[in-house]
């Protein structure tokens, strides 16, 4: 469920980053207030590594012939409490983004929010903890883990849909996208819930103090505070980005307001403006003259696309061709630069040896 950088716009990425920074700061403050930070840090570090390693172990799913693995967000909050659980999840995701390219740097905020916030600050306190109010018991562990994991993943998956939609990177209709994402994550959520229940159940039987101690030590989450902080951060960042986008309306299609809702109308205008911009910029070139090619191709297309031409005044085979030729040349130049640097390096190394 990791979002990739390519799927989001800077505005969405920035907003989610701001939200994540806000929740992280709040979590850190809560851990410091509890005065457990010295002791918690090694535990968080090692448990983070545990979840990372545990994610690699495949479980066979009975009756399906397929296999799944643990996500770990719920397990971490059950073990460490929501704040430490969230921070640990955040560092696991950063390492995954850097070393395994699972989710990118700009999408990092989205990923921490989708995989960390919902499990640690919604599913854990509102579902898991409610179940455990009267103490741990096998049936409660089972239902708490299952329902909390499913709801956490459903919210996360829905978030992925919203983030992609707001970024305007996919042409998938909203309904289709939701219909694709939610059932897949229902299956993943069930596996996650069952695996979490199995692990929590086992550890609780063998070493109850591990399960019961930390959940209490970390205290209750004030959801109101988290949501308020989140809303403030989102409004500020959203405002900053939309202001920036509206002062540069030509090429920057990254205003959230533009992509939300009016995507169908907006896209042609954006490309029209970009294209006409490009034409405006290249027009002063004395050599910019390939009308002959342009006319030939346009003749063949004229009949079939007369109406299209009206709505797409910027469609120009000249620009397309120039873009293609220039693009190929740019790539060739980039490759040549690489070889040149390589050659220089080799020569330098050879000189060093001699």
């Amino acid at each position, binding site marked *: 469920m990791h979002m990739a950088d390519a799927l989001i716009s800077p505005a969405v990425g920035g907003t989610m980053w701001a939200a994540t920074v806000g929740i992280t700061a709040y979590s850190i403050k809560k851990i410091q207030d509890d005065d457990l930070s010295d002791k918690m840090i090694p535990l968080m570090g090692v448990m983070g590594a545990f979840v990372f390693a545990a994610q690699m*172990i495949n479980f066979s799913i009975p009756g399906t*012939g397929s296999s799944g693995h643990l996500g770990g967000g719920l397990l971490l909050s059950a073990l460490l409490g929501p704040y430490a659980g969230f921070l640990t999840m955040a*560092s696991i995701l950063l390492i995954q983004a850097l070393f395994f390219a699972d989710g990118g740097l700009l999408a990092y905020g989205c990923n921490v929010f989708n995989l960390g916030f919902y499990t640690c600050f919604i599913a854990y306190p509102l579902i898991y903890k409610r179940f455990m109010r009267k103490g741990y018991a096998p049936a409660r562990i089972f239902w708490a883990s299952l329902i909390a994991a499913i709801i956490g993943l459903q919210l996360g998956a829905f978030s992925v849909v919203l983030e992609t939609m707001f970024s305007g990177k996919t042409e998938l209709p909203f309904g289709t996208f939701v219909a694709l994402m939610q059932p897949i994550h229902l299956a993943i959520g069930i596996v996650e819930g*069952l*695996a979490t229940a199995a692990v929590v159940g086992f550890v609780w039987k063998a070493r109850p103090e591990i399960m019961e101690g930390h959940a209490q030590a970390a205290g209750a989450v004030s959801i109101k505070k988290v949501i308020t902080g989140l809303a403030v951060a989102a409004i500020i960042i959203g405002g900053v980005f939309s202001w920036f986008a509206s002062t540069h309306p030509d090429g920057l299609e990254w205003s959230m307001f533009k992509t939300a809702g009016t995507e169908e109308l907006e896209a042609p205008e954006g490309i029209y403006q970009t294209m006409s911009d490009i034409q405006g910029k290249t027009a002063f070139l004395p050599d910019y003259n390939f009308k002959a090619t342009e006319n030939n191709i346009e003749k063949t297309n004229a009949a079939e696309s007369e109406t*299209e031409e009206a709505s797409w005044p910027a469609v120009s085979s000249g*620009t397309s061709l*120039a873009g293609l030729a220039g693009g190929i040349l740019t790539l060739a130049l980039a490759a040549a630069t690489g070889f040149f640097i390589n050659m220089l390096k080799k020569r330098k190394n050879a000189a060093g040896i001699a």
Partner: protein
Amino acid sequence: MSNITDSIYKMRFLDETADKRTPVHDLHPLSKLLVTIAYVTVVVSYGKYDVSKLLPLVFYPVVILFSAEIPLLPLLKRTLAVMPLVIGIGVFNPVFDRETIAVIFGLPISGGWISFISLLLKCVLTVLSALLLVATTGMERISFALRMLFVPRIFVMQLMLTYRFISVLLEEAANIWNSYTLRAPRQKGISHQVWGPLLGQMLMRTYDRAQRVYQAMVLRGFNGEYNTGSAKQLLLKDFLYLASWVAFFAAARHYNIPLFIGSILTGVGK
């Protein structure tokens, strides 16, 4: 199993490349981190139909890759491994967006195909740049840069600890997986009957390990601060590195360089 050993190998590979000594490795981690963030943001900010305008940004990974002497194939392999998600979502663009927005050699190209290609290109570039940051900087120096950016101590410290212990726990997970599959061959994964005991045992061992780690740290004088050794100073070259890349990204974002070259080329060609 291949999954686990593969991960161990991947992390070790990046650790080793990060230990090289090249001009890129010698730069200050903060300037490399900032350049990477700027790069990713600029790449993603391009409109969905921008393909040719995006191409000059290919220069950045190419230059870093070769000047930092980083093997290309392992990085490319890793980049391709994350493509399925983007392909899965992007492949619907040609289906839903059929308006012709470009004509090449008389062939009308629909907006969906252009935006799909642009999406794939963005994916490759952003993934490569993140991997290049780690391959030229290493986790410890990135953590140092994060501290300079005022990321709280607790977060950076537990990030470092998680990172350090991942290789330890991955080896443990590999051992568990190995012993399980030797006793229960031809299974697609671990049977649901032992999900709890298997991971639970590992979790309890890990918990005890964390306690020992903490005690060992306290005995060695840990008081909540993680000392990273000599602090590297930002030098002129670090500022120049940052400024020149950012200027290049801004130029590539603002002007369509390939179209400029192309229009000269096709003009002359005629």
